[in-house]
């Protein structure tokens, strides 16, 4: 169990997919203008990430090495399409907001990268920890990023049609925060904060991480 938790925590902190590995950034910068949209994007990624990694891990002995990539893609694309159709049917407003970024989860290198580096070589139990941890690490960062951008840029947070908090009415936010350059700026500060946090954690004793026999490299 401690092994499971160690793998799970890694996705959240030391190997956070967004602020440390820096993969899957494209969708993150694009949809982090609204907390509502970012939250559902995060949930979609957690689901696709966990479900596809566990399935790939379960069938890893029956998938010959040479055709593993096509099989991964089919598995991931199927889960993404399921999310896409379900969101379209039940959350039409959020589906419209996320637009093309839902189908684009298929090519998010975070998911394919974890399938290749971790899920294909480890048992489903550990893989579920990795999928959930990485997915949650992604979701938390994208929601925090969206919170800062929506609050600073538009002066209020609107969630499912209700206004949660708002700046005083005289407040006029810097519009650039809502645009792509603003996304990079805010993201840069987040990376700095996260690096500082990870440094502090690393100063304490870190136990070796199970399941990591391979050097998993940096961004793919």
């Amino acid at each position, binding site marked *: 169990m401690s092994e499971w938790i160690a793998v799970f925590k890694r996705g959240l902190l030391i190997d956070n997919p967004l602020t440390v590995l820096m993969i899957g950034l494209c969708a993150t910068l694009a949809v982090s203008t609204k907390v509502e949209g970012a939250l559902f994007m995060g949930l979609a990624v957690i689901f696709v990430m966990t479900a596809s990694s566990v399935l790939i891990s379960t069938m890893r002995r029956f998938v010959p090495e040479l055709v593993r990539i096509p099989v991964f893609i089919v*598995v991931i694309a199927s889960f993404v399409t399921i999310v896409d159709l379900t969101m379209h049917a039940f959350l039409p407003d959020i589906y*419209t*907001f996320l637009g093309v970024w839902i189908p684009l989860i298929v090519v998010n290198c975070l998911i394919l990268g974890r399938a290749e580096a971790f899920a294909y070589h480890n048992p489903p139990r550990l893989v579920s920890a990795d999928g959930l941890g990485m997915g949650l690490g992604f979701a938390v960062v994208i929601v925090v990023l969206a919170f800062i951008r929506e609050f600073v*840029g538009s002066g209020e947070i609107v969630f499912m049609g209700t206004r949660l908090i708002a700046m005083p009415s005289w407040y006029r936010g810097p519009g650039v925060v809502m645009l792509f350059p603003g996304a990079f700026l805010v993201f840069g500060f987040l990376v700095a904060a996260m690096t500082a946090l990870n440094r502090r954690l690393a100063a304490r004793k870190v136990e070796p991480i199970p399941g990591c026999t391979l050097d998993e490299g940096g961004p793919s």
Partner: protein
Amino acid sequence: MDRVASTPAKMVLAVLVTCAVSATALTLTYEMTRGRIAEQQRAAEERALKSVLSSAEEFEALDDGLLEDAQEAAGEVQVFGLWVGRDATGGPQGFAVRCAPRGYGGPMQLVVGLDRDGKVSGVSIITQNETPGLGTKIMTDAWFLEQFVGWDGTSIDTASKEFDSISGATKSAVGVRKGVIVAGHVYADVLAGIEVPEGGGGQ
């Protein structure tokens, strides 16, 4: 690790089985969500139609021949639908045009309502992908869509000179204006000339 070898037969089998399972799962999901998705889209369109031509109770889609003529009048902006709106007794109240001019974040789906004389009676945005907080002011600033009400479809190029844009959202605002101009052209070139039957109590 004791993984199956990459022989041609096993590779084909692995991919085939994966694809078959995936296709089955997707068919099931599609069947389960299809009805709701169609319903959502119909409901959104219906709401938009009602809001742009409030005097009408029912909307009857015009036939495809007219839609082709309308597309010709609209030029590069795509026209997706034409309706005639009728009140409870079946009397024609005006028209609605659905088109998709380009905004900042791709095409925006608009419905423009025109009364029988070709005056714009309302504009509604069904879907858009504009920058939240900036481009979305075309929806959240109420005065913006209201300014189009009353524009004369038969002389839309003159009417559209009286246009207030939104600073910081020029491309989105001008996109909506383009949609209204297109609807005016469609009215002037196509809708104004057709005979609308008085109708026998809404069909």
